[in-house]
């Protein structure tokens, strides 16, 4: 059964101040209601003032996603009551949005390129935040914090062009990545992105799924919802056209009883703000290199594989990190960053910006001049990251290598170990001469154990073979 998915994505813009007042948006560790003024608290008589930076950021996004910017647009009021909405309306854009009709290219499930059409982009303000405490009085009241009230959001609406939860996830990753490249968005902020998804199976009613607040959540919610709808249909039930809420903790969607349903939002133009004519601002916006362009450049400039380039440019900070450590051997660097470092970071739940590029470059230099084996390199990296994860200062990998004596065994030490192993295992030597292939591997393994991985297996193999051949002669 064909699946049809459209998304509405709300992203917080990382301006310094709120959309309509001068309150700081940086309230992360501050107590409730400490970043609030007459405007965002909706005191009687206060009036909104539009933040020029928010408009510029939204235009950057519009340009990057190939949208047509309206010659004139305006703000509207969306009227509804909710305890987190101080004015009793949200200032948003309705029938005259900032930009319409764009397109984003992603990879379809079969690996072919696919275009996802963007319906529109508009600016709006975030409501406050409700907190519910458990305890005797739980659910008896709500607690309101208006610090978030008035944070600028862009809402990006897609056409129903997505065909699977995985595609939706890829689209969101691409979008997030693009917004980060545009430097208008900080994806690591709590609640920085919120998604509403419209999901239907061809020929059946559409369900709106609200309140998805993580990238993983989108794929989970969609997968759950598709299964639910298929089961309904299999049992002969029609799909109810409704709004459902995603419960992130339980990984399920639940029918929401009242909030959005049947609400008549009574939109009308916001009389306290003037219209915008900002299309010509586009001429002054120079887009940075976006993920697709950067990927192509990585392949061309550094000679790395398409897959490595895709991984590295899939996160702006990672790509920046790679370019800092690429150095004289970009292919080696790509392998180490994409195949090794990323996994080690994920394992420790660490972010790339915790790794000092100079430290990593130091490690790459050791590997490149063959001073340590790959295995020792990984060990040094792990030691360094563990220190970082424990909140300690990270050692330079060369210091770790010296401390543990991980430098590659070479010259005399190397010959000595080979000779000792051959001496100590006459049975294996005999087996070798009797043509038993496994004997050489056994001897190399013993030698590797002796050197604790500081020697290269191939080099050791060659040396031991030489000794054995000489013995026979």
């Amino acid at each position, binding site marked *: 059964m064909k699946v049809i998915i459209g998304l509405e994505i709300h992203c917080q813009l990382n301006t310094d101040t709120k959309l309509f007042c001068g309150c700081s948006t940086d309230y992360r560790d501050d107590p409730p209601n400490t970043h609030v003024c*007459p405007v965002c*608290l*909706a*005191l*009687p*008589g*206060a*009036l*909104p*003032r*539009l933040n020029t930076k928010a408009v510029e950021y939204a235009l950057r996004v519009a340009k990057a996603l190939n949208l047509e910017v309206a010659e004139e647009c305006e703000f509207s*009021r969306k*009227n509804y*009551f*909710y*305890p987190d909405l*101080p*004015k*009793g*309306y949200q200032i948003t854009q309705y029938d005259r949005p900032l930009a319409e009709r764009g397109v984003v290219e992603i990879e379809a499930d079969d690996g072919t390129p696919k275009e996802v059409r963007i319906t529109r982009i508009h600016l709006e303000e975030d409501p406050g935040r409700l907190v519910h405490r458990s305890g005797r009085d739980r659910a*008896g*009241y*709500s607690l*309101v914090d208006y610090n978030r009230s008035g944070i600028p959001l862009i809402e990006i609406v897609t056409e129903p062009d997505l065909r699977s939860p995985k595609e939706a996830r890829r689209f969101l990753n691409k979008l997030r990545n693009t917004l980060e490249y545009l430097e208008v968005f900080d994806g690591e902020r709590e609640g920085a992105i919120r998604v509403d998804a419209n999901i239907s199976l061809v020929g059946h009613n559409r369900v709106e799924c609200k309140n998805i607040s993580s990238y993983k959540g989108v794929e989970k919610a969609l997968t759950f919802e598709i299964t639910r709808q298929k089961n309904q249909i299999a049992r002969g039930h029609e799909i109810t056209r409704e709004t459902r809420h995603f419960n992130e903790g339980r990984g399920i969607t639940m029918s929401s009883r*009242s909030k959005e349903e049947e609400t*008549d939002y*009574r*939109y*009308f133009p916001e*009389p*306290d*703000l*003037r219209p915008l004519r900002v299309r010509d601002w586009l001429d002054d916006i120079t887009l940075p290199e976006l993920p697709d362009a950067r990927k192509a450049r990585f392949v061309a400039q550094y000679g790395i594989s398409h897959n490595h380039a895709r991984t590295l440019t899939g996160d702006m900070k990672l790509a920046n990190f790679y370019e800092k450590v690429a150095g004289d051997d970009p292919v080696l660097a790509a392998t180490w960053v994409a195949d090794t470092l990323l996994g080690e970071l994920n394992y420790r739940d660490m972010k790339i910006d915790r790794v000092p590029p100079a430290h990593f470059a130091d490690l790459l230099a050791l590997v490149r001049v063959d001073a340590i084996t790959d295995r020792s390199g990984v060990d040094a990296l792990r030691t360094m990251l563990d220190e970082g994860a424990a909140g300690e200062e990270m050692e330079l990998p060369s210091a770790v290598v010296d401390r543990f004596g991980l430098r590659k065994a070479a010259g005399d030490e190397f010959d000595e170990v080979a000779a000792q192993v051959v001496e100590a295992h006459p049975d294996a030597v005999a087996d070798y001469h009797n043509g038993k292939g496994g004997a050489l591997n056994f001897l190399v393994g013993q030698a590797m154990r002796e050197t604790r991985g500081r020697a290269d297996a191939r080099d050791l193999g060659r040396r031991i073979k030489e000794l054995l051949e000489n013995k026979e002669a």
Partner: protein
Amino acid sequence: MAGTFHFDAEDRSNAFITRVESATFGDGRLAGIPLAVKDNISTRGMQTTCGSRILEGYIPPYDAHVVELLREEGAAIVGKTNLDEFGMGTTTENSGFGPTTNPHDPARVPGGSSGGSAAAVAAGMVPMALGTDTGGSIRCPAAFCGIVGLKPTYGRVSRYGLIAYSNSLEQIGPMGRSVADVGTLMEVICRHDARDSTSYDRGYAHAPSGEIRGMTIGIPAEYFGEGVDPAVAECVRDAIATLESAGAIVEECSIPSMEYALAAYYVTCTSEASSNLARFDGVRYGPGVGTKRSWHDEFQEFRGEHFGREVQRRVMLGTFALSAGYYGKYYAKAQVAKENVRRDFLRVLKSVDVIAGPTMPTIAFRFGEKSDPLSMYLSDVLTVPANLAGVPAISVPCGRVEGMPVGLQIIGQHFADEVVVDVAFAFEQEGPA
């Protein structure tokens, strides 16, 4: 010289909701002058109720732009004046704090919604006061109480701190005993304010001149039509004749959109009000809302209990006018009508300098005289067009009918507030005592 003003004038008209017995003042053009401020304008540290029980006890933590300007010029703010709740009325009967009476006849209304400010000035309690005018709320009480009141060009005075009733129509404006006082107060409050995005940078620095020789005055037939008391019409025609004898040229003209201006006004103001008043949910200010039950239940009960009937009526009308299926018929149509009114005024004001007519179709009503809402709304028919068009309009006393004051309304081009003040000033010099 800075000091304290002891405000001990007796308030026989219930003009004030909040009084300041000892009002401090600073230096400046208004130093030591007692000034009253309509209670829908925010005053830091001083209760601001909007005439509504839903804001009882609310103490704003900030001053409206105009209040900052008054303080900068040394005014002694002696209190907050009564009004129809949220400005919704033509009589000041709809106040949560009791009606204001007309100082000329306590059995009659002072007009509204700035009835408290008008009564305070007319009773001699203060020489000047601030009012607000959404559809005539400065000019109507000025006319009914026999004082001068100016509704400035839309955008000329900052609305920052004015508790919104109908944002696209209303302006704060000066009220006073004389045109000169109104001019002085206008000079103080007319300053650009970046906090109001609809505010223009068009200051006002103007000494009124009585010279109107050669000026053209348009007389729209619609201002003397059905519903206008013939005695009031005659009084105003006499006033216009006075202007003519002072050298002005009088011309007939027509504003056809007057046919639907009042309907457009009521649809617009109730729609905007339905949204503006949504914030009064008792969470952040006002008597506290209950928190035990679900939000719709608590909000409904709170708003049902603390809003007066007229406010409930207008909020519901506006909710309806914006609702799905009716937006096109009401709100959208009203905006087209508003644009048509603006065009009518622009057209007429190309060939005449000002338009003149009665401010109100009648003299001040007796209490309870207008019992049904629609007949009350109809009495705004001559004042709302200036709000829809956004043009300045002044009401200046021009005589009496049955012993009650009558107001002459003078309407000018956008940003020609100086011109309407000049014409009013000329009339004041020439006109009947």
